[in-house]
């Protein structure tokens, strides 16, 4: 099979980019959820 390395590299780049971005979004979502909960608690206590 010719040029398999290029095929692998192209697919790897796409998966890495997509999954990397999804991970970033998940982390952002988690942090925001924590911030919202904390702020709502603080506001309620005040």
């Amino acid at each position, binding site marked *: 099979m010719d*040029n398999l390395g*290029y*095929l692998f590299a*192209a697919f790897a780049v796409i998966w890495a*980019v997509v999954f990397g*971005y999804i991970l970033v979004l998940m982390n*952002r*979502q988690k942090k925001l*959820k924590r911030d919202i909960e904390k702020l709502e608690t603080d506001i309620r206590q005040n």
Partner: protein
Amino acid sequence: MNKSHITKMVLLVLTTISFMAALYLIFFYVPTELSMGVVQRIFYFHVPVAWIALLSYVVIFVSSIMYLRKRSKTWDTVAIAAAEIGFIFTTAFLVTGSIWAKPAWGVWWTWSPRLTSALVLWFIYVAYLTIRAYTQGDDRKARFSSAVAIIGFIDIPIVILSISLWRTQHPSALIFEGGLTPPMLLTLQICILAFTLLYVLILIQSIQINRSILKVRDLRRLKEMNEG
């Protein structure tokens, strides 16, 4: 479980199924192209990634026009979500194109109209995101970035038509000229469907995150008011 969560779960299941089908078709069903060999299979991911890069820009363009007309934050959150995803997919579009160019043309990069206009699109995304990051004031930020998005839209027809308007190394519009065999066309259609579903899923998630960012800011203001 709310409506938005159900929509995302349905989209996630459909995206997973369509990607599994796409991978099966690419590696076990579609015949190997004669002149380029196995490396031509990059085409089945490269074209959908390019489609998402362009679709995302259309979403930004429409959202920017709607923001300037209505001045609604909702449209601005859609635009910024689409911009980030568009940037990610345009980067993947350029990188996979370059990886495919090396075995196909013997070079990693050539200044052909298609490649150059795609690189210009990437720079427009960078400009858009830079304006978002460094402009002060919500309305100013949204207005400036909307203006850049609307002006930058001129590059989209150039990217699409570049292979028809100029002589270039890049393959002509095989998809629209009947240059693909039925198995190749089916595989490409399933891949485009899979990436479009993934795009919608990520876009919904990203819009929700941008709304949460606004909510956090409003809550911080409220907390400061309570404390002050």
